[in-house]
């Protein structure tokens, strides 16, 4: 790693690899901020990756590929929302079953399109910006999917914390009764943001098959949906923190590859498990009461920033039903 160019290349590939994850995390964050858990991410992303690839392959249009993937994501999100709001079923159970269904369906429907060369998103550096030293090659000499992911993070943050509808969205997820009393249509908003989040998750799936991990094969990106769900928690339901989580996850994976080359005597398995163990550790730190105790041992002036750094709290009404009617 003594070659700076190599390091920059490594870093820019981390950003590229994390971009679909960032999109998915933003989508799920939006849905969960509205109080709904869409657990089906893993299946949704597989199915939308497959759909996006095939549509892109057949029509030759990447736009249509992404659009079809977004529609698949919306369909699954709609099933989760309908099942939990209208049918009053467990969101977790529906999401879980959809995970399996998405996985199976993608394997079946995509089987004639496995390992085929398809079209993919081309790299398009932004003029001027890409010439900025260090930051330029990492963030601005990428392809449109990466830019979309980065813009999405900013847009989601702005929407959440600087706009009226964003406030309503958070109200629906935190205190639906209060929001309802102020005249907000709680369940209608939940449907809406489930659809928005689902569309983004679908786009994330297609971002894999049309950009980051081009092509399709059975179980192409299995597991990434679960990673995204964990990162949403790590990110404390904030798009910026979520994006950082996705980048960190990519970095640990890259680091594992590097370490593996450095220590060939250690089994590959040890490195393969690192991201997963790290995820658990991160969840422990961010959700545990012990962290709170640890923070309270610190000097007073440190507590607030530490708490902001280490602790997260879920939207209060996450996963609960709201009986509007």
């Amino acid at each position, binding site marked *: 790693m003594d070659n700076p160019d190599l390091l920059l290349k490594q870093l820019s590939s981390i950003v590229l690899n994390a971009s679909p994850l960032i999109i998915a995390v933003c989508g799920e964050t939006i849905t969960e901020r509205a109080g709904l858990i869409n657990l089906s991410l893993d299946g949704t992303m597989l199915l939308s990756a497959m759909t996006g690839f095939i549509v892109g392959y057949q029509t030759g249009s990447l736009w249509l590929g992404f659009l079809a993937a977004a529609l698949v994501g919306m369909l699954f999100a709609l099933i989760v929302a309908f099942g939990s709001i209208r049918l009053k079923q467990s969101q977790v159970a529906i999401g879980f*079953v959809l995970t*399996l269904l998405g996985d199976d369906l993608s394997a079946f429907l995509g089987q004639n399109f496995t390992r085929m060369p398809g079209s993919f998103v081309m790299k398009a550096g932004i003029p001027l910006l890409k010439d900025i030293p260090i930051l330029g090659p990492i963030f601005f000499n990428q392809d449109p999917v990466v830019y979309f992911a980065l813009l999405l993070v900013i847009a989601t943050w702005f929407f959440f914390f600087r706009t009226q509808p964003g406030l309503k969205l958070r109200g629906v997820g935190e205190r639906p009764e209060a929001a309802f009393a102020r005249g907000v249509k709680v369940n209608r908003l939940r449907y809406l943001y489930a659809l928005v989040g689902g569309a983004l998750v679908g786009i994330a799936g297609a971002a894999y098959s049309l950009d980051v991990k081009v092509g399709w094969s059975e*179980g192409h990106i299995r597991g990434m949906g679960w990673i995204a769900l964990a990162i949403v928690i790590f990110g404390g339901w904030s798009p910026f923190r979520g994006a950082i989580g996705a980048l960190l996850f990519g970095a640990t994976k890259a680091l594992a590859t590097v370490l593996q080359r450095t220590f060939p005597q250690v089994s590959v398995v040890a490195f393969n498990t690192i991201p997963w*163990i790290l995820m658990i550790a991160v969840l422990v730190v961010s959700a545990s009461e012990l962290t709170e105790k640890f923070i309270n041992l610190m000097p007073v002036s440190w507590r607030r920033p530490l708490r902001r750094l280490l602790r997260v709290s879920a939207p209060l009404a996450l996963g609960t039903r709201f009986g509007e009617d």
Partner: protein
Amino acid sequence: MVRNSKRINILMSQTISALTPVLATLAALGVFAIILMTLGANPVEAYGALIEGAVGSGNAIADTLVKATPLLLIGLGTCIAFRGGVTNIGGEGQLIVGAIAATGLGLLFPEAPGYVVIPLAMVAGFFAGAVWGAIPGALKAYFNVNEILSTIMMNQIAVQGMNFLLRDLMIDPVQLEAASKIPQTARLAKEFDLPRLVPTRLHLGALLAVIVAILVYIFLWRTTIGYRIRAVGLNADAARYAGINVKRYMVLSLLLSGALGGLAGAVQVYGVTHRMFTDGSAAGFTGGAGFNGIVAALFGQLHPLGTIPAAILFGALLVGANKLQRVVQVPSALVTALNGLVVVFVVSSEIWRRRQAKKRQLLEMEEAARATSEPDIPPEPIDGGKEVLR
């Protein structure tokens, strides 16, 4: 007269409500038939093959039951966890660690008599799964870590561990000599095979699973500990006020749930595969039993005894699907999609049940208003008395 017809109405709607899962299954099969037709296959022929493959002969029935066994054990674990208010999606990982422990024991003592090793292996699998379940349980109870995610992570760790062990410590010495180095263990001693119940592939594990189902039922509904687990699942706050150590029971329900998953792994190795092998993914060894078992439990309304027929149904679908695939030449992935379809239909059929239950309650209220003196039929809670989750 009027009252009688109302009562018949109530009975009718109760029957329909009980039959909804069956009707939903039929609807799913109907949709599947349409898919088959669009693929140019004859659905009648296809379903004929499915049924014949699943229950057409003694061997077929035995295969179905063998396939249902791990589903049932995993499903029973799911019942305990969900009833205890925790969601265990770690069946795959728990099955794998159980299988590893049981296989390891069998490989360590190849000379020991079967009647010693087999029970010990079951116990080893049980405990390994218990550990694998207790870790996310403790993380949930004491560190507030979401158990859905941690059990998924534990699955991944178990798979990596299996891949490592089967390529390294536990690899078949023959494979170590050979150039191919297929990652699998040696075959366990023939003595350790679970006894066959009848001269088919049906092994003792199937019977064991049914016994465990009854035990789980007794445990959850007839013992204090089981009662407390359910109390925690129904309302953790109320349970805490009642003096129940909620955290401990959370860990316990995930621990037991994992233990049954581990037992499923041990049974699978000693009854069916007689060795462990891996293709790198979890499903390569488990065949997805760790996930399908959860679905079977949901299908069985999270009731241990309801899970028995549900597991058999899914076992039949899996076995019959193989035949279906051979006869009408449809891809295997389509067949697993059929399982998903069945579940989605059953879940969505709940809307029907609920609407019926509501109607029934209204009828009952009218009934009660008309004749308060004879409360023959106990009023049903609004959800038909069955909580699908929790």
